């Protein structure tokens, strides 16, 4: 009977996950452009990727750059925000709404909004910087500043993660804080030795999911670099954008499927490493790790 209930998922899993996974694994060893027959070429696509496609490395670098800065910044930002919003100050509900709001907004409209905000002349960001006497960079027009611009945009919607931590903070028993305070612990000690250990499971979850999500960045690069060419000096050519161009612009689908598998392997390794190291810093209440 249980199988009847999970049947929709089983069908979906086979036709949209397992089937495609196997198809793309085989496909990555072929030459294929959707109308052609699949011609087996061995490791040719992979060899080409690593030795003869500078844009492969460029796009991998762009994506890694984004992930390396975005993940710690959004994690720390969300934690700091949630701790601040967990204080007993007036209007916290209003603040929570305001901070959370940007994270429900996404899509092309948001990218257009940020393209306007980051406009070197008429944009809000440089206008605000000018008020404090700084001449801002050209952002999306300067290859050195395109990725920071995207990360900046991401920070606007840090409220989603904030809510995740907040839910957890509220489940920490207040007695813990009270008794620590009696023992003379100051605010930093209380954060460092009570709050932080108690939220490590959420930090772990957050880091893993934003790492996986970060490696899938595509739309930002596609929309904000005009027509998907990757912006000035390919500085916004993210891995998935390069793969997209290979698959749907030049129909080099075997190659693109190979790229997809390399990405999959990278994400798998990083997730596994995270899991492995989590033992050393993630604290589970009542768990065996004591």
């Amino acid at each position, binding site marked *: *009977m*249980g199988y009847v*209930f*999970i049947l*929709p*998922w089983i069908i*979906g899993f086979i036709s*949209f*996950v397992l089937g*495609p996974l196997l198809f*793309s694994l085989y*496909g990555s060893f072929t030459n294929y452009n*959707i109308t052609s027959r699949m011609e087996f070429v061995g490791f040719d696509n992979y060899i080409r990727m690593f030795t003869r496609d500078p844009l492969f490395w460029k796009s991998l670098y762009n994506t890694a750059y984004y992930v390396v800065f975005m993940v710690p910044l959004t994690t720390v930002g969300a934690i700091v925000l949630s701790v*601040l919003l967990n*204080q007993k100050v007036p209007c*916290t509900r209003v603040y929570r709404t*305001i*901070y*959370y*709001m*940007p994270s*429900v*907004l*996404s*899509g*092309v*409209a*948001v990218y*257009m*909004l*940020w393209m*306007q*905000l980051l406009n070197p002349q*008429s*944009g*809000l960001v440089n*206008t605000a910087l000018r008020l404090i006497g700084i001449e801002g960079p050209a952002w999306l027009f300067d290859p050195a500043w395109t990725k920071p611009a995207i990360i900046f945009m991401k920070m*606007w919607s840090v*409220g989603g993660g904030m*809510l*995740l931590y907040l*839910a*957890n903070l509220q489940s920490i028993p207040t007695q813990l804080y009270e008794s620590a305070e009696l023992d003379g612990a100051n605010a930093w000690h209380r954060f460092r030795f009570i709050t932080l250990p108690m939220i490590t*499971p*959420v930090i772990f979850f957050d880091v893993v*999911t934003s790492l996986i999500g970060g*490696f*899938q960045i*595509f739309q930002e690069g596609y929309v904000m670099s005009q027509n998907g060419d990757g912006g000035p000096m390919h500085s916004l050519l993210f891995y998935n954008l390069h793969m*997209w161009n290979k*698959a749907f612009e030049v129909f080099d*689908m075997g190659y693109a499927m190979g790229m*997809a*598998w390399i*990405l*999959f392997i990278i*994400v798998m390794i990083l*997730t596994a490493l995270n899991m492995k190291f989590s033992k050393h810093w993630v604290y589970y*209440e009542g*768990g065996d790790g004591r």
Partner: protein
Amino acid sequence: MSKRYYASRRAQQLRAKVIVSIILFSGSIILIMPLWWMISTSLKSMEEIMQYPPTFYPHKVYWRNYVEAWNAAPFTRYTFNTLIICFFSVVGSVLSNSFVGYGFAKIRFRGRETLMNVVLSTMIIPGFVTLIPTYVLFSKLGWVNTYLPLTVPSFFGSTFFIFMFRQFYMTIPNELVEAAMIDGANHFYIWFKLMLPLVKPVLATVAIFSFNGAWNDLLGPLLYINDEMKYTLQIGLQNFRGLVQTQWHYLMAASTLVLLPVLILFFAFQRYFIEGMNLTAGTKG
């Protein structure tokens, strides 16, 4: 000592509260400013936008920017198309995930835990790994340039929503199911008549999240829809940008109109957005 100690502690706490309040207040101003800038730009004249330094609010308000932007492309048509896709995505997600989630939470069968782990582990598969084969599949089925690739998959469950439903069902006592079975009800009846009313908050959350997802989806329509009359808002907006490149007042007016329904939804159903997040936080352990 104690009186003075408590007095100084209270002063200290008050000071901390004032500092936190100031930080939160300035932070919220910074976070709202982008939206303010969008609306303010959308109401300016082209001349005012070109002005240097830029103005913080429109000196003369041009409401007609909205009408002109909307009519510069078939946005009404795009909205209609998007709503159709949203409707079927919501119906599909709500039905399939509540159904599958029930199976995973309330029915005992062999391999249940293993399969649930498989559900969860699919989270780490990057979307692009399955994107190309799925595209090949749909194009061989002749589904390209129809809404089927954008709606049909939601009828087969999605990892995150299945997990959310399962978490919620597990908080409902099993005795309820057992009592209903003794009264002669089968699982279909229990799911539909007994459980769905109980999981209404999750239904609402899933409905909102999947509506939001379908409304904002660019990749799917970009890949599958070629016919301009079948475009969704996201593609319409993306193409509109190329059309009016530097006319920021039109771009911002169109963006505002596309974001508005999401904002309204957010303020009307804030509770469910937050509930969804809390259910996610339940992952720990």
